[in-house]
């Protein structure tokens, strides 16, 4: 079942992600893909995440396909103009990549090439429009294509954004631009997320709640302090703290499993996107704890 079919089937969908490495040694990446591929419905491949230069998402998506797993091509607007983006999208299509996640992308100042020229010829909404146009056999300039693309395209949204109203307005613009699914920034406050979902359910789109595995109270505090749009509530931080150093990761995984169960059992959203960031082997453990395996 493809990612799109899985979402449409009504099952609780699980996606995880792999981050292409910096350098050509991809042994660890092969290993991560193998751990995850039969467990999740699709694997996001990040695009020079945090503006740190690494292997391109496109090449690794192809490798994911070669492992018989389904990739979601993350595409940011930071490094390519509209010619480069459309050209890569055509290339992705002929390589058999079917899912694309359109994002504006972290600024180059967040990364390891701070002197690079940020492109942002397009941004997320316009990239979604471009994908829709390519799917319909035309490029952004209106030229006909000899063969259109076949993408299932999605976007990202930050339910904890402060202020929230402008973020929600943009969410609607993304839907109008053709987004079919959303993966959210990591959420930890399920009651608040439910409010967001009440809004999101008004639209014909699928939503996967984002979740970054918490391995300690320190990490939770770090996320709160440094990552815009992430808010780990105080009670979860206390729970991690109380677990002590030895048991913190275990507790973090329990929290993840508990959240996933609730999201699924209360039918709050359509699935979960687990960001393991180096702890890919923990994803199946969490899924088992949550009763998904």
């Amino acid at each position, binding site marked *: 079942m493809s990612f799109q079919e899985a979402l449409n089937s009504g099952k609780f969908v699980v996606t995880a992600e792999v981050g292409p490495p910096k350098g050509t040694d991809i042994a660890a990446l092969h290993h991560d893909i193998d751990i995850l591929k039969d467990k999740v419905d699709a694997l996001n491949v990040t695009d020079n995440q945090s503006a740190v230069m690494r292997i391109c998402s496109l090449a690794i998506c192809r490798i994911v396909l070669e492992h018989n797993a389904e990739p979601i091509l993350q595409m940011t*607007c*930071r490094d390519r103009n*509209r010619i480069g983006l459309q050209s890569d999208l055509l290339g992705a299509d002929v390589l058999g990549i079917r899912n694309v996640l359109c994002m*504006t*992308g*972290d*600024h180059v*100042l*967040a990364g390891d090439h701070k002197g690079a020229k*940020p492109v*942002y*010829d*397009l*941004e*997320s*909404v*316009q990239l979604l*429009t471009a994908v829709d146009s390519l799917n319909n056999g035309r490029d*952004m300039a209106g030229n006909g294509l000899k063969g259109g693309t076949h993408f299932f395209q999605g976007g*990202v*949204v*930050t339910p904890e*954004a*402060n*202020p929230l*109203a*402008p*973020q929600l*307005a*943009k969410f*609607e*613009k993304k839907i*109008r*631009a053709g987004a079919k699914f959303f993966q959210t*920034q990591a959420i930890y406050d399920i009651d608040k997320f439910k409010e967001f979902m009440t809004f999101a359910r008004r639209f014909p789109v699928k939503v996967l709640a984002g979740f970054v595995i918490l391995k300690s109270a320190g990490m939770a505090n770090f996320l709160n302090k440094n990552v*815009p*749009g992430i808010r780990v509530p105080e009670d979860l931080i206390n729970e991690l703290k109380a677990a002590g150093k030895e048991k913190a990761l275990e507790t973090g995984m329990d929290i993840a499993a508990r959240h996933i169960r609730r999201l699924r059992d209360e039918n709050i959203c359509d699935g979960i996107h687990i960001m393991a960031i180096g702890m890919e082997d923990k994803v199946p453990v969490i899924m088992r704890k949550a009763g998904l395996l």
Partner: protein
Amino acid sequence: MIITQKKDRKELLENVKGYRSFFLLGCSECATLCGTGGQEQLDELKGLLEGEGRAVAGAFVAKTGCQVLGTKVELKKFKEELGKADCIIVMSCGAGTQSAVEMFEDKAVYPANDSMFLGNMTRLQMFDERCSLCGECILDKTGGICPVTTCPKGILNGPCGGTKDGHCEVSAEIPCAWVRIYERMEKTGRLEEFKAGTLAAKDWSASVKPRKLTAREEKKK
């Protein structure tokens, strides 16, 4: 106005070390307001050069350094001083420097400043960039606040996920342009217009360099 900053003086002196006699050219407009090309800065550089044993044949603050013809007329009375100088140091923006290059075909011309951006003076000698001269103004659609310039990503359709308590992910010193735009659209009763509209990708062909414009209408015969 064009915001300029003084080049590091050591670097400047190094750049012009091969010349003996100088003419300093300032500008009474932006560069004076920025404190980079007014009388005071001319005197300062003159002192610096003379302290190094170099001659300053003359110095003048032009009315508008980027106005080529006007500056040329103003400089007529410095014919002698300019004749003595083998190098002209221009203390205005890059445009002013190039006015001098155009006027003095066979004389060395060096910039004393770095040109930074087009900005507004918010307080005395404090400047904010507000417009990047994109050639296709969309302020009519964004409540009068320019996202092309004041959002570091130039996003045209709402905030990215990096907004943190109304500030930009790039720096907590930058208010998020899209939060400002949203709030202004709300205050001015234009929220529906903002929500309903999606701005298409900009046409950057409107800013292909170098740009040229003839604003005067040719007189009908």
